[in-house]
């Protein structure tokens, strides 16, 4: 079991739903990295924004762009991740563009919503297969889409629009009721 699962278990044991931050704090990053300029580049951000919006699109509730998930990913990558992981992400963005070019002769940001979804669906399959590979090594690199998906979900569901519109957020519950009725369609608690 990896560290993420370990903490998930601990959080579960403590009787609390896993907090976004606990979950986010799981991947070790041990050394300080200088600001990565490629990460700050406008084209990086716009690609990230489109990817995040494809993972979490605007529906009846705001999408990842409205929650500024692209800014969040850049901040997190810069401040909390090692340089080698930042590079994995940047190389990953290139791979996404390569896949888009190969299939549709366009950069990812220029694809239609359906095409974007198709590209990322394939990449996500690849990610899950990679995560389930046999003979995992301790120092194997993380799949780039793991970073993207993880930070997109964290950034979105813990953002104000994500927590208060896509989910239900009550800052001060004031009481605990252990058993309340739930019907399909009711939103989950944000925290």
């Amino acid at each position, binding site marked *: *079991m990896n*560290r993420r699962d370990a903490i998930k*278990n601990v959080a*579960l*044991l*403590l*009787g*609390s*739903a896993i*907090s*976004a*931050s*606990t*979950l*986010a*704090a799981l991947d070790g990053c*041990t*050394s*300080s990295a200088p600001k990565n300029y490629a990460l700050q580049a406008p084209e990086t951000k716009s690609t990230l924004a489109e990817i995040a919006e494809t*993972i979490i*699109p605007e529906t009846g*509730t705001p999408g990842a762009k409205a929650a500024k998930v692209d800014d969040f990913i850049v*901040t*997190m990558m810069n*401040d*909390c991740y090692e340089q080698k992981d930042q590079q994995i992400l940047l190389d990953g963005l290139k791979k996404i563009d390569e896949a888009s070019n190969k299939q549709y002769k366009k950069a990812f940001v220029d694809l239609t919503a359906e095409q974007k*979804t198709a590209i*990322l*669906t394939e990449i*996500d*399959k690849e990610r*899950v297969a990679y995560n389930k590979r046999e003979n995992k090594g301790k120092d194997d690199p993380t799949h780039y889409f793991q970073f993207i*998906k*993880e930070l997109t*979900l*964290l950034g979105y569901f*813990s*953002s104000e629009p994500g*927590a208060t519109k*896509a*989910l239900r957020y*009550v*800052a*001060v*519950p*004031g*009481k*605990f*009721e*252990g*058993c*309340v*009725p*739930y*019907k399909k369609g*009711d*939103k*989950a608690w*944000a*925290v």
Partner: protein
Amino acid sequence: MNLNIKAQEQNTYDAIVIGSGVSGGWAAKELTEKGLKVLMLDRGKPLEHVKDYDTATKDPWEFAHRGRITNEQKETHPKLKRDYPYSEHNEKFWIKDSDSPYNEVKRFDWYRPDIVGGKSIMWGRQSYRWSDIDFEANLKDGIAVDWPIRYKDIAPWYDYVETFAGISGQAEGLPQLPDGKFMPAMPMNCVETEVKKRVEAKFKDRRITMGRVANITQPLPGRTQCQFRNLCSRGCPFGAYFSTQSSTLPAARATGNLTLRPDSIVNSIIYDDAKGKATGVKVIDKHTKEMTEYYAKIIFVNGSTLGSTFVLMNSISKRFPNGLGNDSGVLGKYLMDHHFRTGASGTVEGFDDHYYFGRRANGIYVPRYRNIGSDKRDYLRGFGYQGGASRSGWQRGIAEMGVGKDFKEALTEPGTWSMGLGGFGECLPYEQNQVTLDNSVKDAWGQPVLKFDAGFFENETKMRKDMMNDAAEMLEAAGAKDIHTFDNGSYPGMAIHEMGTARMGRDPKTSVLNGWNQVHSVKNVFVTDGACMTSAACVNPSLTYMALTARAVDYAVKEMKKGNI
């Protein structure tokens, strides 16, 4: 000369309390309420109740890194960064490792705060009584030394501290986990209630109860009952859990007898060879690095287990060349912590039309049942479980495959119920588990540092198998599906239940403290935090420190009045 006498008078109190955490706060409250002028010292920065809980009412999106620690913070906190308690949510409460290093022969995770109130602000708040099964364990097993006290000695003091601190919980009538003065227990959720029913039907010796926790469920003077935000470790603006700031400090201040001095690093205790007792403490100002002496008739050492032992070790005199009160040579030895991070979890079906409201900062508890009565295992002592049930949230989407509208919509609803149980096991007191003073490294104030050499051994390893397998067995009995077991390994220090190193005992030749937490050979010095523990039991220890502290103060003041101190 005149000036010196005046300065000395100004720096003289009836009692000095070193440390302001769970036990130090209690010492200050009890001493001041008995009319003594008290100086409470803490190396941490000031932290005013409510006002200084900067992050307590922040929403998740107000944290730029959503709780996560930055690369820069990791550089200055090379030890604290190892695990989750050091977080963006309460970053400023923790000590900067780089200023206060320590050495490890074996890995030891030492969580040190840097605030007045100490770890009483960030503690886990689980509050359980010890029983005679615990106090008699060393004697029965022929291990280490016997506790100089029994349950009857401490029981009235448990009553006393529980009533003031406010502990919510359920009475169960179990000999191994005595009931206390409880406020109403927090409720279980539907799945926990059902699991309890099924497990207790299958295993007659096992009980599932609500965690006994120092979060109040009814108001107390100056404190509001728990609001179920589950943000305790940021400091509670409602004063809903016991901390120095919410509870003991206001009481001590109300007497008008308290002087609190933050940013004060206690370097050592001054021992007067002629008088045959301690006369005061040497304190380094954290900012100016200036050393000042303070004097008192009684000294309470409450600097947290290893902080207290450091002060004793660093207090060298002609009479005590190996540390204050260390005639026995056991100072620094028999370091203990609970071992944990093993258990099982599984999903529970049939409750999809149920949910919960509010965030309960507490879980369920399974009291120890191993090696009790006729149960005999291939290891000594036992363990308890903490756990709980909840429905999964959006986090499940990280592992799952999917992008786009349907994926998003699915994640906005709660997922399956799961139930987890994680064991907390007793660690035996081993002589070789110890800290020593290391003069080869100095902290930012020129003091030596501690060197840790502690581990878990065969008894703990054997116990962990039961901790894991029993959890799975109970979940199976409860009808859980997809049960998986885990053992993530446990390093000493991680449970933040470090105990021992200045143990109580009956014989001055083999212990540092007597049955009143009084240093055998220095009658006016008392150590009432985790350092005093002779064995570790398997329950969370803070409540016991509270009770021992109140009891020791009562004794100390009586002795002082009799002229014995």
